């Protein structure tokens, strides 16, 4: 691979600069933070994979209600558990300042798709709203409000009236919101 866990080779660094939206300083900082997450035995492996529990201790992800979904979406392992350094860079690239709207909306869609079936149906929307308002009893919406809200959402964004929101409809909603690019951002 050309890199040990403690040091990034220069050609690898420039390759990462080509393939992600991150600057050189950001990639080096990400490398430093990633190696802190690894256990001692893992550090000597050629392509170490940080376990999900370690990644969820990062302060930028610790209090995010979507943290497990984020790790699942960006993980390339079979069991969708744990991130390699390249997965981590993909994550930071999608959440970076200079990433395009298309890539952010693509990953936002995948994060919100709780059952990974390619569309946002009513269960996904309900889980999404619960994440947004908080899981405790007093912060949830009442069942009536939830039903009204979901029917309003589907009425506004489901253009083809199939009862689900697919990626293009999602991107259509996102494109009309100017705040999305600045709020879909995680900076180390």
């Amino acid at each position, binding site marked *: 691979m050309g890199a040990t866990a403690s040091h990034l080779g220069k050609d690898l660094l420039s*390759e990462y*600069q080509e*393939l*992600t*939206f991150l*600057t050189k*300083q950001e990639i080096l900082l990400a490398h430093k933070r990633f190696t802190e997450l690894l256990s001692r035995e893992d550090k000597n492996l050629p392509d170490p994979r940080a376990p999900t529990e370690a990644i969820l201790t990062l*302060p930028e992800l*610790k*209090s*995010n*209600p979507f943290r497990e979904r984020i790790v699942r979406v*960006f993980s390339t392992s079979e069991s*969708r558990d744990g991130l390699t350094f*390249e*997965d981590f*860079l*993909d994550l930071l*690239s*999608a*959440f970076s300042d200079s990433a*395009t709207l*298309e*890539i952010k909306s*693509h990953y936002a869609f*995948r994060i*919100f798709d709780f059952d990974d079936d*390619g569309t946002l149906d009513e269960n996904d929307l309900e889980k999404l709203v619960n*994440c*947004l*308002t*908080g899981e405790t009893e007093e*912060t949830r*919406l009442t069942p009536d*409000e939830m039903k009204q*809200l979901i029917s*309003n*959402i589907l009425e506004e*964004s489901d*253009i*083809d009236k*199939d009862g689900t*929101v*697919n*990626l*293009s409809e*999602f991107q259509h*909603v*996102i494109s*009309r*919101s*100017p*705040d*999305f690019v*600045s*709020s*879909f*951002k*995680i*900076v180390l």
Partner: protein
Amino acid sequence: MNSQLQRQGSATAVQGTGYTSDQGSPRLRRVTSSRSDQNGPQFNWRPASAAQEDAGQEAAVPPKDLRALPMPMALKRAISQVQQMQVPVLSSFQSWKRSKAKSLSRARKSIGGFLHYITLWRRSLNKIGGNFGDGVQSYFLFLRFLVVLNFLSSMLIIGFVLIPSIVFRSVASDSVNMTDNGTAECRQYDHKPDPLVRYFSYFLDLLSGTGFMEYTYLFYGYYRNTMVAESDFSYNIPLAYLFTAVFYFAFCLICITARAGTAVRVAVATGGGATGSYSRIVFTGWDFGCLSDRATKLKQKNLHYQLQVDLEEERIKNEAASLTLRRKVLLYSSRILLSLVAFGLIIAAFYGIYQATTFSQRKVKETGVLGLFYEYLPSIVITVGNFVVPVLCDQIALLERYNPSITVIVALLRSVFLRMVSLGVLLFTLWSQITCFEGVSEECALCHYNYKSYPCWETRVGQEMYKLTLFDLLITLAMLVLVEFPRRMVVDNSSNKLIQFVGRQEFLVPVNVLGLVYGQTVVWTGALFCPLLPLINTLKFVIVFYAKKITLFSNCRPAAKTFRSTKSKVFFLLVLLFGWSLALVALIYSIAEIHPSMSCGPFRSLASMWTIVPESFYSLSFTTQDFLYFIGSQRFSIPLFLFFSVVMCYFIALASVYGKSVDLLKAQLKLEARDKQFLVKQIEELSRTLGVAK
């Protein structure tokens, strides 16, 4: 069997229409082979190279931007390797162009990295945004913009006015002789401070700009009208002073419009976004930059509140549509009445400011603390008005029972009107005192201005603006120490139900932004008369940044209601432009109409500040004069005007065409969705008939 087929059909349809990939040439929609373990929407990364291979036009395809592909790194690396292996046949010109583009992008990346490193207060702003949300962060971003703007403009003024004045003060003396036509009294200006002063009067002088501070580079009165004219170098200080002031205004205008341009472009492109608000809140409402549990809980509470309020408003709207005519008439008449009451309050505040200013100008000879109080009386009245009247207007707005969003806008507009026009009233009062209402009284007959009370009126105006700026800063710091910290301590240490209900201070963004705009407008108005005021303002805004940051993190709780950040950015810049135009009116009037003081300043021998320009014009060489005459003549200006009209028509036509194509594409999207539904239904029927047939 039927359901599986249906699911496969819909899955294929998803793959077919799911990703239209990035913008650019239309891609071949190829349905990827359906995999049993589909983990999400598929991305068709195979570019249109298959179609173009036949045409052999690979040379024209630029390398795809791999960063924008939503794939894991391993796949992106594979694609880049494939791309690199496809060595395209390029002409030497194209390969040169491509290598230049690559080095340019590399240079841009390194510059971006450098700028990112030196950006002022980047870490603080990130921390503020992560803990208090976007709305509060927009206030601090606005403050940073103003600091940079003031710093650059003060560099401009120092470079073109202050340094030449310092250099030439020792070299040349006043080079213009004034004709003595009975105006000797006008030229008397006693600026030497009283030699026997008590020690604390230095402090009073610092606060009010009088005494030892009056005859310094700080104010207009100290500058001379030296016109250095050596063999190969000439520098006309009055002309430089005037042009620097004008250019300072133009520079600020350019910066503000450049900054507003990006925000307005985004706002226009997204079309305001009134429709689709529920899906927008749910899909784009979450701020992924929240850095702590407290911020997350706060954001969740915000969203919960917002959703509840919107659902509630919808229910109320459905009810209100059925209001009787009588209740509607009642509502509208009460709204008109309350608007008149608010307007009346504002007029009362203006009258108070006028009285305070005239009183203060009359009592200008007092010394000591009482004198200081009289000097600061206009500032005090303005500040009290700016506190009391908006609070009353807020209560009035609540009674008017508008939509919540409209209430915020109405209250903001009233506050803006109050603050800006109160400054205008102050200026008007000063002007009426200086010129005695266009010279009707005999005090102004001799020198065209009131030379008895204002031997050097520009310095006096500059002092007023200086006092306003300083007073604003002192009030901010006093509020911090005397109101916000004690409030936090009371709330934290008492368990009284009422106190807990009132709670900690909320950081109100609109009020604070209006304070900044007001301060900047004062500086713009005063810059002609107090050239170092932008520099003082830079320091003031830096102090305000740190003070507000301290109070934010120690004393404030974040607001329950969110503040839309993009619309507000445009609004802040529009209000700033309004303040700028107010200052511009003052500048134009001062330059063109009022007679400069004959006893001080760079324009002391002229009838108005503007006349230095025609006078210097005649000292230019004849070719330059002819050239400038030509530019101003009709032969040049009318074709120029026609050309600009044509360009504007072109852009208007372009904009309307883009709007129409956007509408067409939206309609096409809906049509395709209907086609998809039709096909899905056909598949269903087909599978049903097949199933029946079996």
